């Protein structure tokens, strides 16, 4: 057995727990090794010294006072904890109220935002509708101008047309022609718009005749 191992066993382990064989090997080594025998002797001294120290247990004076002091500290802490709990509950309620208020403000803000965006969309739609309307009005105006021109033109150029309606339309004023044209347009400017020149003429004649009659 190596000296290091023997000295480790002597220092760390309870020799009574070694097997008989190990113990004999150990004693044989110690008998022949001065260094390990010295360690063995020192360890015996160590254990004897330790027994002496261990027999001197520290004495606690007035153990009741210590118990009371600890119990009092614990009660103080418990009261502090209860107070802290109440304090924390108060804080929690305030935080909850603040959170709810914040939530309401956020909801209101987003509602307003949604309302605004909806209004914008509605306005946009309205604008688009209006521009569509205005386009329609433009087309109506074009039709109106054309109708007036055509009526005047037909009255001047188309003898057949002029003859048939001269007696009634000769003294027609510009304003009355416009009114007539307006009626023509109102009745079917979309069809009129899409038709070709001859159809337009026929249509106008038909409408004028209908109006005159």
């Amino acid at each position, binding site marked *: 057995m190596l000296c290091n191992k023997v000295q480790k066993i002597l220092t760390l382990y309870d020799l009574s727990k070694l097997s008989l064989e190990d113990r004999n090997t150990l004693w044989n080594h110690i008998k022949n090794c001065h260094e390990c025998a010295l360690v063995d002797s020192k360890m015996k001294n160590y254990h004897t010294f330790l027994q002496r120290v*261990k027999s*001197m247990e520290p004495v606690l004076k007035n153990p009741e006072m210590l118990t009371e002091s600890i*119990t009092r500290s614990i009660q103080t802490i418990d009261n502090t904890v209860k107070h802290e709990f109440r304090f924390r509950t108060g804080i929690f309620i305030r935080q909850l109220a603040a959170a709810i208020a914040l939530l309401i403000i956020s909801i209101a803000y987003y509602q307003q935002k949604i309302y605004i965006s909806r209004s914008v969309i509605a306005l946009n739609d309205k604008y688009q509708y209006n521009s569509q309307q205005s386009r329609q009005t433009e087309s109506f105006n074009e039709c109106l101008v054309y109708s007036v021109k055509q009526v005047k033109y037909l009255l001047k150029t188309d003898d057949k047309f002029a003859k048939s309606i001269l007696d009634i339309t000769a003294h027609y004023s510009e304003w009355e022609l416009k009114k007539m044209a307006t009626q023509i347009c109102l009745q079917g400017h979309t069809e009129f718009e899409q038709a070709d020149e001859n159809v337009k003429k026929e249509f106008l004649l038909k409408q004028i005749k209908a109006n005159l009659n």
Partner: protein
Amino acid sequence: MTLTASKIPQPDSQLIERCKQGDSNAFGAIIKSTQIFAFRLAFKILLNEDDAKDAVQDSYIKIWRNIGNYQPKYLFTTWAHKIIVNTCLDRLKCLQRKKKITDQFVLPVDNTETNLINRDLADLIKQISRDLPEKQRIVFILKDMQDFSIEEISECMNISKGLVKSNLYYARKSIREKIMTIENRRDSNVVQ
């Protein structure tokens, strides 16, 4: 005679359950039955009666606060000792930081008999463990003065069993030399 954590009488499990429910009277009963062991352990680590009492008080407060986390599969005293040892170690670190300040003050001396016993014991432990690194000193106190098992020390100090053994080996090696010096000095004093 020192008692290891497993040999100290364990508090009744019903008492522990009552403590978990917040019954301070039940905890008072536990304090009464275990405080002496806690004090002895704290005294051997801190080597001062007042510091030991303070550490015991702090430890019981921690035990009370954490008793809800205590699992009955462990011995109550083992669990409590872990808290006491750690509280003492924290206090020791704190004291070492304040050492320069406290060295300037002369503490009042109480010459009653009990105090002399405590002082003699503290002196003796100081003599043999003075130059030891802290870990070796604590392992020596827990193993050789308090008869803790290697497992208990490993659990209390949060270090491996191998490290406990290694610290114990170096502590014993150093202390046995000091004992030789102390014994030789005592013998020479007797001869003179």
